[in-house]
């Protein structure tokens, strides 16, 4: 039985979700950039910021959700995904609020999706990885069985199928939008594709995952346990769509 081809996804039917904590310096420009590049609705999820993130995002034309207390990057993103599902959006684009994703590269995610028919497209900058990250990624790739090159990229496009999975309670105890999220998607038969995009240096703020060595060690330890517990998820083989052109 051929895998059904996902229906085409237009940027106008999508919601851009931007999780933000204390990103007042950059969030306005990011919101404006996304609106210019895609023309879609933008939702900034304010992860209990102590600065003016919400107000600046609203002034730039975004809707805002304000979490009563910090849930972390993934908790904030999931709030946005639940909002998208509740309001009938057919796709969600996630990106970081610190300005490291070039809004002009967003259409590349949609092109990659229409080319591959994948449920999830991850925007990856192949050149930006430091040596430590390369080693970590190599380790995670071997452990998780997921054939991807960047696990923590916050630049992603999810279709309605992926939204249904990620909005559910099973995804609520994850802490980062990374391996755990990808393994949950893989377990549910979602296909993932990577698209090469340029990545700008962070203009403010810092990576939540690669903040310091103890944080990295804790992150790798958590992720290792998660991967071992879900050892089968990333290794499930799906028939690539390209082998079934008739289905599209």
């Amino acid at each position: 039985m051929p895998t059904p081809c996902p229906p085409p996804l237009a940027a106008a039917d999508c919601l851009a979700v931007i999780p933000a904590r204390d990103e007042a310096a950059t969030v306005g420009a990011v919101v404006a950039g996304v609106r210019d590049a895609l023309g879609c609705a933008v939702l900034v999820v304010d992860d209990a910021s102590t600065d003016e993130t919400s107000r600046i995002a609203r002034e730039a034309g975004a809707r805002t959700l304000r979490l009563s207390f910090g849930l972390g990057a993934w908790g904030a993103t999931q709030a946005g995904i639940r909002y998208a599902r509740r309001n009938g959006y057919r796709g969600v684009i996630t990106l970081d609020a610190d300005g490291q994703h070039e809004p002009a590269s967003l259409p590349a995610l949609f092109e990659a999706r229409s080319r591959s028919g994948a449920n999830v497209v991850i925007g990856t900058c192949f050149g930006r990885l430091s040596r430590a990250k390369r080693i970590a990624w190599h380790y995670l790739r071997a452990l998780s069985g997921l054939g991807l090159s960047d696990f923590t990229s916050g630049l992603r496009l999810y279709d309605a199928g992926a939204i249904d999975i990620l909005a559910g309670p099973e995804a609520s105890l994850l802490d980062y939008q990374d391996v755990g999220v990808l393994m949950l998607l893989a377990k549910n038969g979602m296909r993932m594709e990577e698209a090469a995009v340029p990545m700008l240096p962070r203009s403010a703020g810092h990576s939540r995952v690669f903040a310091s060595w103890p944080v990295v060690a804790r992150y790798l330890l958590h992720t290792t346990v998660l991967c071992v517990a879900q050892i089968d998820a990333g290794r499930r083989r799906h028939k690539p769509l390209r082998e079934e052109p008739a289905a599209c």
Partner: protein
Amino acid sequence: MLTGQITSAILGVALAGAILFLVRRDHLHGPYAVWWFGVATATFVLGVFPRLVVWLGHATGIFYAPVLPIIIGLSLVLLRLLKLDIDRSKQERRIRRLTQKLAILEQELTRLGGVTLPEAADDEDG
């Protein structure tokens, strides 16, 4: 001079009393109260009838009988801790989802009413 028997009986009674008091004051709810009351009862019974330990040691093949209650006790504590973390995870999931739902409903309320609600950071209570 207290004998070991009286000491452990007093410990059992004190534990049972403390647990009943905590349940009465609403500090321990349903399943937790039952578990801890069971622990108190066992402490009390084994305290009053120490021969039970010797008999159990023979029955289970543990020759140095006094170590048996320690093994059982430690195993039960570990089980209890495990259950506690499972419950904590369940609650954490619910709290996260409720926080998200609250933010979504607040946004809808704002949109329907056309007014911006005051920032919600102040009502954080831990």
